[in-house]
């Protein structure tokens, strides 16, 4: 074991030696520099290993051979080992990254860098407050030098600001130290803590000065302009160091000195400052376009978050460390990686990050880092946030949860915008950049650390058993073979999913609900993937993401605990986000999708938190007995799930996201993904149970929401010109039906809901597949540019026709089953007006259905479509399989509905539908699908035969052979009436779909951004203003905490 003191000795010795090497021996200096950092890493790393494997005792390093408090003592415990390892690893990688720059600036720059790392290490290890001061000072002076590496003017400005403010804060720290020394008679932190400085007002001022100086070091909002400027002006490599190593160290230092003010109120204030910083920084970041500055805001926000967690340690108890570590490590790896990527790109505006897509590795890492920051699984921050929120809600600290979630959401706003730019922003010319190996390796290492820590922390949190790794491994495997042609990956994926379905099925033996959804999810997956054979090329990135989504969906089904559920929920969200953003123009839509999704996910998280807090039980069945604010909890959960089902008010992401997605992605996200929300709602409603007094109002409101969603969705679809958007609006409407049906909480309502769910899955998959295929074939989304396709694509036409009959609820096909059950359920439940709206909406559906089938298939064939062929058989095959499904369901619904009916019966008082063969009877009416099918079929064939007999000899004519007021048509385009076909209807009822909700959200976001823009004006750029902020912060904090305000 190498003693930790050698960290200092080696680093300083080397730094001092470097002065000896002139220009001639520069190379040796460089080698020594890297070797020195390497040995630091080795020392801290071996201690870490020692603690982890051998669980060694904490090592105390006495300097000068005397006991504390008389001499300075360093401490190397497990926590210090972790922190120093983090710092040194970052330091080593950062040095590698910066090596050419440092090399150019000469030995001096290397020395400064080395001392920076060394002093950060010492600050972590020391347990003497003055020593801490000295080495923080060394650190900040070294940093002030490193800022200047770029040699740009703004770097000098930033450095000046940094020097002045940190000078003031260290002055205050000194004052605090000296007074605290006077009161406690010692300079070691532990003695000062034991002296209970905070207890008496006299000495509490000293403690105040101490703590406030450390707080200022962590750049609390709004007294942090100086810190942000450093991030902006410094070389990104240095920014990475500040953000990763510096922030980690200062947090740990803060953690060490916090007990100085160990009174609950103080901790509360600290948490409050952290929270304000977390929210404020993220808010201001929303308007930021400079990547480094944005990362700076984000870093400060994360540090604020961690400060808040530390401030809440009384509440969190022993989990504090592990929670904060998991968030810290995500921040550490992600920020370092992001800053480094920023250095490679060297872009002034985040829009230029679109160049990143030239390098898939970097893009992948970029995405991973962003997701880690926001807290998506499987990254450590996910588990950290989960644990944090569960613990907080267990102790009733709801307002903190709200703060965390709001701030995380705001964080998502700008991070996802950024990601969107990188993946999809249109750029005439992508700026060129080079990726040298020495810069790539650090970034990749951070990626590895991130993933490694994910695996490790999953283990530490003991979440390992909760996570099903098989699908994840499969996703990884697919990712590994991403370079292969699409059809191979397609086959592998289908085989994998099929096998997994087979493997999973026995475990769902007695669970029809999950069987249905596994059928929808995985069956749908296979069918939509079959359509993927139609695509050529490698389709890089498609399969891993699609499979990730399906893995999430499967996970939802398998989930037994809330954590599993949420984990998979997020997994699915992430996968689907990447799927959606693949569309040509889908960047803004994917953005709004992910924002709604994470907002919804946070609502779910909070709901879960309340459930967990009530029951101290992580299983999903805890949902049924929420005792903490049950009404709120249920509402939150419902809202969360409704973001996925795109219910009224939360639906605006859907049309764009579904409409612009790729042709086989649309069915995945519409027919399959939306059902995840439905599944969630079903689980929720099952947990709520019938006659739950806490949810009566909620259900009633949701019922109305469902009804209005249906109306708005269908109305919206009527006025669409874009075929896929029309279908997307139709999805909103259909999901409204489903939501409405499930809110009945009656046997009949649920039966209707299930019928709708199954139907919607089938017909929407068909429609999106076929229409998507046609859109690709015809090269346009606009229906008025299509027309006459029936002659070119008869099979597509039949598929669409049948789907349309089902949507319309026209007997004898299965859509009618839904309608019939609905009528019965509505009247039985007594929700007449909602029912009337629903039925009205159902008729409105005819408008858009007609528009769809007419504009695309009927009417006039266009010039440029005269030679198109039928869409790919690979799309038609799954469609026709689904059509067969529809036909079976239509003719023999009893075989499916009866088991469902039996399954849900126990949850309700009575079974209100009886089956005699194919005849279903309720208290109100009866319906015999098979007979109707036979009667209608027979009559139809007879009539058809009659007509054919009468007009068999009809002359086939061409499309312009129409009576045109004795003229001939001009062109197909002018003869095809499709654009704004429902003008009259729009005049009468168009106000219903006036974009009120979109406007509402737009106003919200504009206001938020305006507010952010207004807030960030406090960062006026003036040194003196920044000083003013700091002093103001100190005074206000003082007045509040001690001054008795």
């Amino acid at each position: 074991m190498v003693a930790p003191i050698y960290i200092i000795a080696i680093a300083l010795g080397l730094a001092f030696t470097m002065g000896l090497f002139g220009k001639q021996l520069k190379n040796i200096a460089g080698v020594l520099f890297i070797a020195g950092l390497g040995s630091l890493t080795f020392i801290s790393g071996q201690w870490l290993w020692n603690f982890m494997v051998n669980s060694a005792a904490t090592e105390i390093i006495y300097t000068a051979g005397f006991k504390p408090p008389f001499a300075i003592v360093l401490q190397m415990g497990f926590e210090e080992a972790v922190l120093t390892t983090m710092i040194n690893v970052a330091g080593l990688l950062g040095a590698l990254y910066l090596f050419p720059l440092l090399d150019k600036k000469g030995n001096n720059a290397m020395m400064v860098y080395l001392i920076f790392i060394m002093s950060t290490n010492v600050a972590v290890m020391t347990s003497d407050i003055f020593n801490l001061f000295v080495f923080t000072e060394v650190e900040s002076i070294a940093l002030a030098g490193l800022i200047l590496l770029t040699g740009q003017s703004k770097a000098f400005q930033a450095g000046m600001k940094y020097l002045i403010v940190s000078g003031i804060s260290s002055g205050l720290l000194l004052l605090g130290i000296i007074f605290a020394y006077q009161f406690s008679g010692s300079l070691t932190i532990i003695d000062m803590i034991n002296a209970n400085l905070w207890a008496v007002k006299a000495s509490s001022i000293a403690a105040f000065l101490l703590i406030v100086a450390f707080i200022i070091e962590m750049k609390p909002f709004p007294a942090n302009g100086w810190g942000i400027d450093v991030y902006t002006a410094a070389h990104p490599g240095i920014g990475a160091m500040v953000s990763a190593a510096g922030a980690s160290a200062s947090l740990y230092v803060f953690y060490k000195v916090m007990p100085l003010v160990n009174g609950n109120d103080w901790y509360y204030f600290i948490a409050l400052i952290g929270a304000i910083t977390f929210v404020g920084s993220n808010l201001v970041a929303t308007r930021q376009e400079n990547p480094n500055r944005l990362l700076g805001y984000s870093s400060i926000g994360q540090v604020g978050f961690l400060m808040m967690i530390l401030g809440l340690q009384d509440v969190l108890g022993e989990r504090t460390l592990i929670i904060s570590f998991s968030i810290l490590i995500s921040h550490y790896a992600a920020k370092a990686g992001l800053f480094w990527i920023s250095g490679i790109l060297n872009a002034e505006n985040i829009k230029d990050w679109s160049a990143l897509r030239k390098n898939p590795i970097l893009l992948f890492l970029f995405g991973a880092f962003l997701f880690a920051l926001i807290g998506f699984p499987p990254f450590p921050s996910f588990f950290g946030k989960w644990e944090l929120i569960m613990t907080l809600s267990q102790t009733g600290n709801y307002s903190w949860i709200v703060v965390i979630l709001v701030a995380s959401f705001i964080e998502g706003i700008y991070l996802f915008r950024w990601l969107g730019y990188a993946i999809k922003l249109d750029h005439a010319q992508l700026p060129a950049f080079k990726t040298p190996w020495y810069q790539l390796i650090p970034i990749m290492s951070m990626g590895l650390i991130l993933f490694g820590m994910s695996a490790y922390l999953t283990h530490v949190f003991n979440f390992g058993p909760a996570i099903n790794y098989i699908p994840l491994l499969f996703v990884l495997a697919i990712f590994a073979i991403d370079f292969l042609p699409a059809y191979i990956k397609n086959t592998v994926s289908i085989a994998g999913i099929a096998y997994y379905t087979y493997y999973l099925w026995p475990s769902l033996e007695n669970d029809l609900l999950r069987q249905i959804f596994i059928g929808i999810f995985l069956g749908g997956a296979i069918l939509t993937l079959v359509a993927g054979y139609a695509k050529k090329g490698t389709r890089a990135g498609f399969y891993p993401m699609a499979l990730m989504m399906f893995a999430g969906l499967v996970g939802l089904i398998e989930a037994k605990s809330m954590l599993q559920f949420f984990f998979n929920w997020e997994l699915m969200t992430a996968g689907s986000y990447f799927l959606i953003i693949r569309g040509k123009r889908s960047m803004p839509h994917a953005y709004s999708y992910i924002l709604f999704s994470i907002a919804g996910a946070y609502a779910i998280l909070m709901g879960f938190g309340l459930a967990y807090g009530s029951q101290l039980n992580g299983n999903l069945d805890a949902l049924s007995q929420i005792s903490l604010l049950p009404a709120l909890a249920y509402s939150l959960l419902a809202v969360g799930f409704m973001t996925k089902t795109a219910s009224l008010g939360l639906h605006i992401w859907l049309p764009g996201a579904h409409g612009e997605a790729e042709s086989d992605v649309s069915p995945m996200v519409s027919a399959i993904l939306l059902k995840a929300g439905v599944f969630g709602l079903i689980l929720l409603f099952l947990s709520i149970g019938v006659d739950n007094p806490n949810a009566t109002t909620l259900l009633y409101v949701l019922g109305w929401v469902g009804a209005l969603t249906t109306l708005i969705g269908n109305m919206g679809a009527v006025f669409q010109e874009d075929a896929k958007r029309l279908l997307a609006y139709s999805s909103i409407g259909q999901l409204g039906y489903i939501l409405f049906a499930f809110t009945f909480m009656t046997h009949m309502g649920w039966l209707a809901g299930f019928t709708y769910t199954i139907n919607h899955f089938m017909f929407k998959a068909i429609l999106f597949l076929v229409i998507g295929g046609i859109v690709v074939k015809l090269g346009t989304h606009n229906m008025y540019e299509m027309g006459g396709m029936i002659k070119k694509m008869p099979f597509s036409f039949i598929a669409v026709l049948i789907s349309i009959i089902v949507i319309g609820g026209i007997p004898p096909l299965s859509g009618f089953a839904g309608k019939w059950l609905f009528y019965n359920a509505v009247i039985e439940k007594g929700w007449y007006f909602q029912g009337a709206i629903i039925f009205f909406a159902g008729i409105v559906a005819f408008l858009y259905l007609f528009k769809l089938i007419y504009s695309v298939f009927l009417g006039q064939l266009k010039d440029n479509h005269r030679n198109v062929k039928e869409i790919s058989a690979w799309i038609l095959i799954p469609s026709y399989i689904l059509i067969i499904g529809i036909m079976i369901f239509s003719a023999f619904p009893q075989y499916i509905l009866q088991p469902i009916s039996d399954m849900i019966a126990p949850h309700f008082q009575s079974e209100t539908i009886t089956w005699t063969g194919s005849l279903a009877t309720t208290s109100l009416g009866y319906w015999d699908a098979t007979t109707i099918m036979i009667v209608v079929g027979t009559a139809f064939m007879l009539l058809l035969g009659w007509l054919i007999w009468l007009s068999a000899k009809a002359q086939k004519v061409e499309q312009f052979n129409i009576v045109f007021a004795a003229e001939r048509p001009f062109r197909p385009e002018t003869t095809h009436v499709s654009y704004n076909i429902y003008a009259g209807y729009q005049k009468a009822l168009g106000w219903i779909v006036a974009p009120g909700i979109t406007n509402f959200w737009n106003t919200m976001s504009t206001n938020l951004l305006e507010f952010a823009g207004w807030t960030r004006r406090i960062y006026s750029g003036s040194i003196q203003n920044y000083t003013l902020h700091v002093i103001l912060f100190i005074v206000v904090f003082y007045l509040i905490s001690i001054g008795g305000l």
Partner: protein
Amino acid sequence: MLMSSTMRRIIARVSGRIGIPWYQPWIDLTKLYSLRTQISHGTMFYLGPVFRLMGGVGMFLFMPMIFGSDLWSNYSFSGDLVLILYFQFFGMLGMALGAGEGGHPYSAIGISRGLSQFTTIEVPMTLAVISLAIQYDTLSIAKIVEAQQGGIMHWTLFTNPFATVAAMLSLLGAFGHSPFNLVKAPNEIPIGPPTEYHGTFLGVLRTNSAILHVAEAALFMNLFFGGASNWFELIIKTFLIYFWSVFVGTVFPRFRIEQSVVWFLKWPTIIGIIAIIIYL
């Protein structure tokens, strides 16, 4: 059954003319079936009229015509009122598709108008049906008829006047006579949806409209006017119901499509809501 289609021509007499002979529709029909030239725009051009006729026939098939008669209750045992309501769409869809296949712009315009109007026509109808379902606690037409037996005062017309009024107003639209006939506006968009239809195709369509009108009238008779226990009663009642729309039609001018949409959502809907409220 086709007899009542002759009544359509009586409209002429209201405007002071002698009008057509009572058998004229059959002649027209015969003529249409006898035309020699037929042209077809495609498969759906065939299927459209078949769907359309199927809608009428289907509605007819699933509706009990004469109370108490096993034979004339048709296939009503396999579906109830909801089935009938939704079977209307079957025909509509057929018309829409067939007309669309013709590729004629006027057809599309006509259909868009028709569908637009239809959405709101159905609102009062739906409300009335819900009201009936609450009143009689059943959706079975046969049972509704049964409940109305025993004297004129047991008819829904008197037991639930609001629902009746709402439904009767909606019937005006369903029959598509003036003022709600912009769909077919003969001179603006020549005859609307069926503008390309001729010969046997048109014959089928006309057959259907005859059946459909009877079926709808019979439906209303069953729901609101006590049903029919014998043929004579059936004919008289459907005739009278039909006449109601004819009378209104001769008096009022045509509505624009947005006007009719709004109109249906105004008074008939309010009445329909009242019909439900009284049962709440």
